[in-house]
């Protein structure tokens, strides 16, 4: 992680991850609403899938293009 914070792409990568965690905490206030996606996917599940997808895309871009030890 020391190598990640030393350059701009790494800082952007960490910023995206941090924002996604804050977003996960923020959306919890909507979990009282009975919303189902595709007829069965509850909000906490859908939010988590989006959260993992954000981490996945950020990781793919950073680790395969910018990570100094790649």
């Amino acid at each position, binding site marked *: 992680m020391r190598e990640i914070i030393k350059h701009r792409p790494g800082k952007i990568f960490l910023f995206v991850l941090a924002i996604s965690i804050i977003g996960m905490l923020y959306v919890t206030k909507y979990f009282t609403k009975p919303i*189902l996606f595709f007829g069965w996917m509850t909000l906490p599940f859908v939010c988590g899938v989006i959260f993992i997808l954000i981490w996945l895309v950020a990781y793919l871009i950073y680790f395969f293009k910018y990570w100094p030890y790649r």
Partner: protein
Amino acid sequence: MELFALSLFGLIILLIAVYGYKISAKTAEDYMLAGRGIGIIVMFFFVLFAISSAWTFYGYPGFLYLHGPCYVYFVWGCVAGFAALYMFLGPRLWAIARLNRFLSPVEALSERYESKPLRLVLAVILLAFIVPYIGIQPIGVGLGFQALTGISPIVGILYTTILLIFIVLLGGMRITAWVNVLLGIIYATAFFGSLIWIVSKLFPGGLSEAASIIAIKRPELLTAPGPKGYFTSVTIGGALIVGLLALSWPHIVISTMTAQDKSIFKWIPLLTFVAGGLLFYSIPFIWGSIVAPAVSHMDGTLVLPVVGKAADNIVQTIITKHLPGWFSTFVLMGVIAAAISTAAVQLMTAAILISRDLIHGFFKPGAKDEQLIKWTKVAVIGIIIFSLGIALWNPVALALYLTRVAVPGFAQWAPALVGGILWKRGTKQGALTGAIAGTVYLIAGFIHPPLVFGLGNPLIPTLIVNVILYIIVSLLTPPPSKQVERRFFDEVDEFLSQ
């Protein structure tokens, strides 16, 4: 039929362990860290199924079944936490251990902080929280045995314990990792297959039909705060943070030290996100939050709603009632696989802490490899007996033990671990003060919950105290020596840059 299949399954695992014994190099490095030669595929199965214990089949769906879908936040946190371990800490810890031939992460930290007392403190803390968790796994299987065959849980407990002992004694870390590939495939197939079969048999309209039954009969199971009001915004957010601390689970941290090369750290997060987070962990979620409650609340159900600790067995009960006996046996094999794949890694990790960090570190520093391996094996036997005793003496629901006891306990070495690897200014005084204060506060919170503000999970306040003390005391005490800076930072940077 069931007993024959389970005997054959056990025999295959034993044969793999014997094969592992034959090909092993008989060195401490080979026995404890698989010769630092684990490649990408084995590493993925090793880690994913070291994480996916009997808890994934019993505790997690059971808790979702009782309290609604918000507990999934813990798992989302865990997925991110495991990936973070491999992205942020893993490469450096791997390089430190490889350059200095360390066999345990606690040994690495004790050298990094130049402190033998820290080695003692961290080893004792980790052992205190990992050992009881090992015993819970065979007991979970014992209950599964009982649900399937009607035989006393003792038989299942003994069966699992014997397999565990053989795998770890004969094969060490290498065979523990290899066996996880086989066990993981069996577990994932059984878990996913049972879900597909039950849904197609009971809900022709698919998961939407199952969800609509819950929406009509128990709509509170689809939203926060859940039927019992457990999940507020604070507890849901807390579950995510507790999950993120998965990066400090000792049996996962040690896996980074077994990696063959640094490319492992580039690829494992991909598998963690896709195969672990999006695919595998969706299975217990769908089981526990949609399928099991719908089965219990559908008209003419064979599986009436259950409460309390009985919810741990809900998936097994549904499978046993609705699917053929042979498939129930296969699913039980999957559960045994899950329990063994986790407990074996935990057992190995705990035994290394005892032999390498306590015995070798304090009493026999000049011991040879053969002695070290012997002590590790003796420790394995002692730990399994002790952990079973604790788990039988104080039975708790799987979900609660993991999230409320084991994870907060593991978190108490996180500041020393993260700071030791990433922060040059972290000192032994800071690490010792933080770890001791955090653990004492945690234990006090178990005894008297108002001390941790009555929070369902004591991790957050205790970790905050730990981190603050670590930072403040580190800044107030003399910095680590130049030698430490060179050995644990400069040389590591150079090595990883090659």
